[in-house]
């Protein structure tokens, strides 16, 4: 388990940087040689320098937008993991509830949750909370389903050990059941992180007035193409950092799981 995770981690990091170098090099060659139209694909130097040329309506800077999105994504991820974990444990302990709600949870994958935005706007106001709420719900679904699977498909022999040693339910949960379910829970959290990013940036793109998603849309609508690419690159980098950090946490947490 831990070997595969560490291998996946390294391969993810190496692939990301290798691809980034290749894309930047290809981009540079294409723009410098005149192969592409620099109004659509601006030169690398102009994209990097765009940060200092932002003409935002709000006094927000590049780092402000990045910070807003990072906080929203992390808040959605943490809340989504907690909510999903709680739901997963509930479904495991009360399988009737799990079986009844499973079709609805699976349907959440298919429904664009932005349709709930007006309702959340009324409920939570015009601020970051509706976006964090959407991000939380989107993240919680895979975490809940995977947590449920993790607990449901424990090794029978480990259950027998807990019983034979007469472990009280809470101790059994902490020492056997939770560690046994962790690989599945982390898998759910990694998928949840992707959903949290998609939810946050998608919502920012459509309804927010700050954050990376908003900034990409704003720069694109104002034909500020180099800045748009800069924010797109920042969005990709943030996604990479969040997903890779979670993979690193999984690899460290599951390093002894055989």
């Amino acid at each position, binding site marked *: 388990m831990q070997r595969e995770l560490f291998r996946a981690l390294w391969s993810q990091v190496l692939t990301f940087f290798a691809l980034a170098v290749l894309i930047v090099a290809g981009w540079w060659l294409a723009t410098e040689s005149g192969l592409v139209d620099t109004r659509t694909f601006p030169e690398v130097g102009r994209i990097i320098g765009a940060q200092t040329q932002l003409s935002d309506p709000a006094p927000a800077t590049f780092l402000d937008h990045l910070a807003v999105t990072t906080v929203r994504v992390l808040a959605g991820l943490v809340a989504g993991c907690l909510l999903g974990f709680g739901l997963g444990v509930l479904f495991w302990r009360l399988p009737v509830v799990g079986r009844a709600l499973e079709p609805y949870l699976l349907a959440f994958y298919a429904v664009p949750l932005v349709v709930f935005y007006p309702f959340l706007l009324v409920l939570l106001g015009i601020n970051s909370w509706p976006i964090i709420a959407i991000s939380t719900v989107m993240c919680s679904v895979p975490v809940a389903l995977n947590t449920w699977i993790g607990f449901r498909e424990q090794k029978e022999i480990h259950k027998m*050990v807990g019983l*034979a040693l*007469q472990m009280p339910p809470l*101790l059994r949960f902490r020492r056997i059941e939770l560690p046994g379910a962790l690989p599945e829970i982390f898998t759910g959290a990694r998928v949840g992180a992707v959903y949290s990013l998609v939810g946050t940036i998608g919502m920012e793109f459509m309804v927010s007035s700050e954050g990376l998603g908003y900034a990409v849309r704003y720069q694109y609508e104002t034909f500020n193409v180099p800045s748009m690419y800069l924010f797109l690159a920042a969005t990709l980098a943030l996604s990479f950092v969040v997903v890779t950090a979670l993979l690193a946490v999984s690899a460290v947490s599951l390093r002894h799981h*055989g």
Partner: protein
Amino acid sequence: MEKSEPREAHLLIEGVSKTFGLRGGGTTHALSPIDAAVGQGRFVSIVGPSGCGKSTLLNIVAGLVKPSTGAVSVDGEPVRGPRRSIGVVFQEDSTLPWRTVIDNVRLGLEVERMRKAAQISRAREMIDLVGLTGFEHAYPRELSGGMRQRVAIARTLALDPSVLLMDEPFGALDPQTRLMIGVELLQMWQSTNKTVLFVTHDIQEALLLSQEVWVMSYRPATIRERLPVPFEYPRGPELLSTDEYQHLSARIWSVLQKESQRAFDEREHLLSSR
């Protein structure tokens, strides 16, 4: 060294039977009513054809499965569920891969609300007893199958049960390791005076380890023969060529062969009737 015959039963199995309900309806009679007694400090092996219900009987004695009829008692106390005086070692690797050897061994001690220092001290004693000193902080994936099984034995012994139930504990090990770990098990048994009920498929293992062998029939299982094993300990390889050993082995084998044939015929009949 030969242990003396017990005066009274330490472990008593009275009229224990088990019937399982099948998913598609109907029932399977796994065990016919079984009566048996094991004296304090005795080592009894159970052999029988595959699927005859040896593990079911052991799980009932452990309190992990409820019998359909009858009862099990230890020192006159009825067994109604898992209890501290009965330790179980399973066939499958039951170590927790995320815990070190010492943490695996002290798992049961955590239930006892013992202070951590006392848990560690007791766990070290047991690790020493099973010959794993130096591997306290190793993880199960760093150990061989035989070493992992010794961790499971140490974990069970740490709770100092008076009855030790072993369900084919060496079934997944290679023959050399089985032989070595069998010798170590005997040393542990002789130094701790536990009552051992040992399930195995291996007639030689049963005869080298135990003082008595129960040969079980196919389903609904019952104890077809109870054979005392009269050999002195330690039992070395020279025992295998003696007439007495050959005679006892042949007797167990003849019962097993008949029962295994019955099991085979029944399975064939079931398959052909589908």
